């Protein structure tokens, strides 16, 4: 998959709530093939505080419409500046970057587990799995009901399970507390979210001998494997999250 530096046009900037927005982007040419788990590096113009590009997972791709989406949480100046983009604006993007989630074996029982903006890559993954004949269960965790994002699109691709930390919606607790984990025997879990959540899920998977892949969000400078800033300790030594990841099998990590 050849990487490109390209100026992409904003087709839509949809505010989800005060913390999240969805950017839909299009290319003048044909979009390259992208895989679930891959990410893009976005140049943020007009923010003096933002020197480096910002990495975001590919949230969903619509090849026929030649668009793809990013689901972005406002975390600081860079994302705040991006949240003010309007239809017709252009942003410079390097993409597609990184590796991707693996495909499961036939007939395997699959769980997608995500929390917060970690749910971003899971929509693309769920759709991809569907297209390849799999129907995953999808477990989404949020802080509270106000933080819960629209999940209609996910619901079309698998069974949905929800948790909120305060119990204001779905099951109360963390995703690893959800009864779906005891009620079902999964063969593989694909997980993305805050590090504590991924570590908890990794512990569950280890304890239950479930295959598990997590998507890391290490700080990045280049995104293309040359700065060596985004490393994670693995059984094979320090590896770059941007090229050998962001998706790792937990057996490779020193968690």
């Amino acid at each position: 998959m050849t990487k490109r530096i390209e100026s992409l046009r904003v087709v839509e900037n949809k505010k989800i709530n005060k913390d999240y927005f969805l950017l839909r982007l299009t290319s003048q040419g044909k979009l390259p093939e992208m895989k679930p788990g891959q990410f893009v590096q976005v140049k943020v113009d007009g923010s003096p505080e933002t020197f480096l590009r910002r990495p975001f997972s590919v949230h969903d791709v619509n090849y026929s419409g030649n668009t793809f989406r990013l689901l972005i949480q406002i975390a600081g100046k860079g994302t705040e500046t991006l949240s003010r983009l309007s239809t017709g604006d252009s942003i410079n993007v390097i993409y597609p970057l990184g590796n991707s989630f693996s495909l499961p074996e036939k007939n395997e029982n699959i769980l997608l587990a995500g929390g917060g903006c970690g749910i971003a890559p899971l929509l693309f993954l769920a759709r991809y799995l569907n297209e390849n004949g799999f129907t995953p269960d999808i477990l989404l965790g949020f802080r509270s009901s106000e933080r819960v994002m629209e999940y209609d699109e996910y619901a079309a691709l698998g069974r949905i399970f929800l948790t909120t930390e305060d119990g204001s919606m779905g099951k109360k607790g963390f995703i690893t507390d959800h009864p779906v984990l005891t009620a079902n025997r999964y063969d593989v879990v694909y997980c993305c979210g805050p590090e504590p959540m991924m570590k908890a899920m990794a512990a569950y998977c280890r304890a239950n001998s479930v295959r598990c892949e997590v998507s890391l969000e290490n700080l990045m400078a280049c995104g293309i494997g040359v700065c060596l800033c985004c490393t994670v300790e693995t059984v094979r030594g320090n590896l770059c999250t941007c090229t050998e990841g962001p998706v790792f099998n937990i057996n490779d990590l020193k968690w």
Partner: protein
Amino acid sequence: MVKLDFNINDLHFKNPVLAASGTFGYGVEFRDFFDISQLGGIVLKATTLEVREGNPYPRMAETPAGMLNSVGLQNKGIDHFEKNIYPVVSEFNTNVIVNVNGSYVEDYVTLAGRINALEKIPAIELNISCPNVKKGGMIFGTDPKSAREVIREVRKVYSKQLIVKLSPNVTDIVEFALIAEEEGADSVSLINTLLGMAVDVKRMKPSLATVTGGLSGPAVKPVALRMVWQVAKAVRIPVIGLGGIMNSRDAIEFFLAGASAIQVGTASFINPAVTIDILKGIENYLNEKGFSDIREIIGYINN
């Protein structure tokens, strides 16, 4: 057509735009973005004798108009280089320069000797200025006696183009440039990163696992330019200038201040094809100003 090519002794550069060590990987990572043979040269990331895992994560922090890194020379060592990297980079149609680093003088000497034997590597850049390793590294770049010793010993075993990369973390960088010249370096490159630091006020912790790291990017440009100007006036060997170059205007500042060539570092993270833009911008500038040879503007402000 303006003339951009030049020689350092018998080494020919097709143009004065080089990629800086540690920011351009082994070059291969940029092949998706442009034809790297268009560059005057590329400096590969630091190679050491042994395998190095580098420093713990986090190794990076964004700062105003710059970034800190504390990578700490992560690389797979010279054996791996000879076996796996050299065959690839020796195919590049540009000057491939190896950045060499060690903890002891003997490390540098052994490395230089082995790289001297690699036919397609016409030059090494002796990194005596890495702020991110405990032993060695910066000590060679901040202590005149150590600097002299390591350059002298390497010169004995290394017969090709020897570039010495200087540290900006000194009171008087000219002293070190003169030592390099006296000990037979063919050119000097400067600056490496400035030693800096950042604190994460939310977590109340240093932003880097190693607390301090190397500052690069536009923030350091004024310091880099000053040092290049000082050194270029003091030595007769060519000066390769770098530090914060983001565009051709920045590059031209370095030429006007006395640099014979420039390197582009951090800018490649933000635009992996920036070196080509810089090259074109330099050409345009010379055309607009009516110069026919890059050498006409080198050190121009001293006229």
